């Protein structure tokens, strides 16, 4: 890793790590009796580890100019491995949360393992740890390939990957210590937020610098989606996290917004996190990997452009559907509802575009579980956006809000769309990145696919049932005009569905474990065959061009 950095980059990385170490030390010093102190120690340790690593490779000879004739893929490789590690953590904790809802004693009486602390560990680990790392890794891959340009330097991609993961670590360890801003999906405290801004700006600039080196005049549409993800997440993150810390020695801070403004800012952020983190970036993945894997160009490039602008501009206004029947002005709620319904058009245009691309390649979908992951993802994308537009209608929301229906909707999107498209893209890129003809075992990919699909279906159906029963029980009155069921009655009715959901989640988790093993074995055989090669012999290039079908 260090061998590939130029002398200047090695020196610069030492400077950055030294600054980080000083920062960690001062955080540890001023925040002695506070979570801030523990985080200072964490930052210091990370920086010292990094320093040792860079120094150990510091005197290795520099890579020659021939490196410029290939793409810089090592950050993508590392990003994919880290993403799978976060997947294991996030899915495991998610299933633990699910079992806690079946049996509340599963906290084992420790404060750090209570529901309120490990639930955000789950959401952060899956969304930011798994999803974020997969987005970063694949975006590096896609931006270089589609611009036919190598990244401009070797240091900034590493800064992005490791800096981002430091943020994720600060986030989840903070929750376990009870430190949170209490804003969903924006829980990390002010110092972690500032750090993420720095990392994110470097990411954005790196992307633009790579694009500016491209040879093609037109920028392929996948890049638009990735760039929208990077740019809008930066804006959302900065605005929603403006806060004043109690003091520089404390982790705790207070948002500058209050009351209904705070709620609106939070859900403007929250819904656009869905739109630009969980949708836009993954659509970028889909628009590259699905046509590539199917060996067919996207069905309609024009529709992909129109839906890009539709998604970008409609989503911005939809956040208020999270605040129906609140103190938020009625017309703002109506605005959010209207835009949510309109959103169905660009969403279905994207899902349809993906599925129509596969028209004529269905035999490949049947034989190739990797492509099937992507196909199922497009189906669930269509399903969850339809459901979302429906739930955004105020009268429907009066039934669904506060119930497990929302949780069902979330996981139809999260498991069916986000995780499936990610697994598909990872299974496609691993052999390409490590120069293997295929994954170690196609049968294990197949097994993962069926476990993931079964897990998702069980999860979503359990939550739909449970959510609607819950919603109906809460609004059923008896003849005397009082509520027919107590809250505990509805809780008892949930129990079987919670068990089913936890079992579905377990299947999904087992699938991911199999995926990790398969990826690991693919990487290992790649390493072994590279060692067996005679020195100086070029690495084999596998023909990646898909064979033409008879019908084409």
């Amino acid at each position, binding site marked *: 890793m260090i061998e590939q950095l130029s002398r200047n980059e090695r020196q610069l990385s030492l400077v950055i790590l030294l600054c980080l170490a000083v920062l960690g030390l001062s955080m540890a010093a001023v925040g002695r009796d506070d979570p801030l102190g523990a985080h200072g120690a964490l930052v210091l340790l990370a920086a010292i580890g990094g320093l040792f690593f860079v120094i150990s490779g510091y005197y290795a000879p520099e890579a020659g100019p021939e490196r410029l004739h290939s793409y810089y893929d090592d950050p993508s490789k590392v990003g994919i491995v880290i993403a799978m590690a976060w997947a294991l953590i996030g899915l495991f904790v998610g299933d633990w949360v699910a079992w806690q809802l079946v049996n509340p004693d599963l906290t084992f009486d420790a404060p750090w393992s209570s529901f309120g602390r490990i639930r955000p560990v789950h959401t952060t680990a899956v969304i930011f740890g798994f999803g974020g790392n997969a987005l970063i890794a694949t975006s590096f891959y896609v931006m270089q390939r589609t611009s036919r*340009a190598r990244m401009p330097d070797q240091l900034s991609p590493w800064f992005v990957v490791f800096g981002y993961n430091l943020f994720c670590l600060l986030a989840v360890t903070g929750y376990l210590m009870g430190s949170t801003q209490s804003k969903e999906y924006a829980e990390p405290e002010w110092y972690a937020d500032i750090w993420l801004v720095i990392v994110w700006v470097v990411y954005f600039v790196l992307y633009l610098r790579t694009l500016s080196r491209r040879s093609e*005049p037109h920028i392929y549409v996948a890049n638009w989606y990735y760039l929208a993800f990077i740019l809008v997440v930066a804006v959302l993150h900065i605005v929603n996290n403006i806060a004043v810390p109690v003091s520089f020695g404390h982790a705790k801070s207070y948002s500058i917004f209050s009351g209904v403004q705070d709620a609106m800012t939070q859900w403007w952020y929250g819904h656009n996190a869905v739109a630009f983190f969980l949708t836009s970036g993954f659509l970028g993945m889909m628009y590259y990997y699905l046509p590539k894997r199917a060996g*067919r160009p996207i069905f309609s490039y024009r529709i992909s452009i129109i839906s890009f602008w539709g998604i970008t*501009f409609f989503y911005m206004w939809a956040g208020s559907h999270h605040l129906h029947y609140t103190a938020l002005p009625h017309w703002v709620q109506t605005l959010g509802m209207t835009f949510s319904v309109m959103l169905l058009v660009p969403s279905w245009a994207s899902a349809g575009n993906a599925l129509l691309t596969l028209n004529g390649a269905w035999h490949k979908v049947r034989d190739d579980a990797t492509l099937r992951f992507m196909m199922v993802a497009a189906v669930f994308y269509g399903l969850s956006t339809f459901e979302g537009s429906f739930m955004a209608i105020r009268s429907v929301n009066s039934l669904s809000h506060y119930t497990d229906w929302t949780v069902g909707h979330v996981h139809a999107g999260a498991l069916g769309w986000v995780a499936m498209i990610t697994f598909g893209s990872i299974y496609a890129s691993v052999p390409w990145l490590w120069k293997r003809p295929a994954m170690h075992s196609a049968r294990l990919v197949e097994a993962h696919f069926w476990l993931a699909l079964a897990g998702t279906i069980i999860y979503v159906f359990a939550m739909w049932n449970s959510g609607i029963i819950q919603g109906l029980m809460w609004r059923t009155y008896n003849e005397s005009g009082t509520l027919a069921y107590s809250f505990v009655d509805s809780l008892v009715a949930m129990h079987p569905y919670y068990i089913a959901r936890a079992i579905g989640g377990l299947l999904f988790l087992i699938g991911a474990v199999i995926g990790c093993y398969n990826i690991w074995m693919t990487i290992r055989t790649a390493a072994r065959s590279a060692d067996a090669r005679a020195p100086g012999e070029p690495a084999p290039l596998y023909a990646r061009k898909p064979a033409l079908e008879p019908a084409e």
Partner: protein
Amino acid sequence: MEFNHNVAVWFSKSFGLFYLMALSLAVVVYAYWPANKARFEDAAGSILSDEDKPWR
């Protein structure tokens, strides 16, 4: 003029509406502009070709 709630509502109902409509129109015109067709088809096909090396 004071910047209050009513002004915000007026602004979003007038300017907000028209800028979104103009934007939608611009996007559709751009996507269906005949001269852009070749470029888009090129782009759609370009990712399928081999991309083993950067161009420089």
